[in-house]
């Protein structure tokens, strides 16, 4: 397997996520697009871990350089979970105050 096939897949998903963040105006949809972006990074991390695992195989059962990939991907998943929790709470408060979750309506700080 080429490492590039995984990296290209992640790059395409990342760009689709960027398009979603810019093109959507519903708050929940923007959060979903951010999830796409964070998920594409995980694919990169795990692909590089597999690449390093085949370059420098572990001898015993101790952790190697290749283990860093899954560990960081786990951190990314946890941060993504925290982000969605707080983000949806913010959108919920927005809905309660303004009866709408359009990002475009949030122009109170516009000069």
């Amino acid at each position: 397997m080429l490492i590039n096939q995984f990296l290209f897949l992640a790059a395409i998903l990342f760009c689709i996520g960027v398009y979603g963040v810019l093109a959507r105006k519903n708050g929940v949809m923007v959060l979903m697009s951010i999830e796409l972006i964070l998920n594409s990074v995980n694919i990169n991390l795990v692909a590089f871990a597999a690449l390093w695992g085949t370059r420098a195989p572990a001898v015993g059962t101790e952790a190697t350089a290749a283990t860093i990939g899954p560990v960081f991907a786990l951190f990314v998943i946890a941060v993504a979970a925290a982000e969605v929790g707080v983000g949806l709470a913010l959108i919920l408060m927005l809905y309660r105050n303004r009866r709408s979750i359009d990002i475009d309506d949030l122009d109170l700080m516009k000069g």
Partner: protein
Amino acid sequence: MTEEMLPVNIAFFAIAAIMVFSAIRVVTTKNVVHAALWLVGVLAGAAAQFILLASEFMAVTQVLVYIGAIVVLFLFGIMLTRAELGKSDDLDNDRPQRLVAGGVAVALALVMGYVLWDAFRAQSFSLVGSTTVQLGQTTGQISDSIFSTYLVPFEALSVLLLAALIGAIVLARRD
């Protein structure tokens, strides 16, 4: 049998096609609930790719946390904000802004594609014949790494999750 015809490669391209199609549907569909369900397609595809990369721990975590928790959270968010459940034309920005967004995404894809092609085109690997222990991907090795080398970041992450939990409760409760 050529390298391109390996079963893992065929599986990769089949799953990748499903993931890209689902991702495009997530950002273009007019129905909020459908977008959440297409997101499940992308996340499940990523879990399948993790299995192809011999990382079972990540695949299981992906299914548990993303599909099990985050998608359910999204569905609750859709329900609580009383979004229109049918088709809605109010999800996207107007056409000029969508075109700009598409241009930004394509430009980003071209730049990243060139960089990746330039840097990694010669690098390939084969997981056939190596065990998960050799690859450093067993749950035991990952947990050893988390609870020894990366203990401090892990504890910081626990505090972050606690802060996010309390913050979400404070923001979302009625007072």
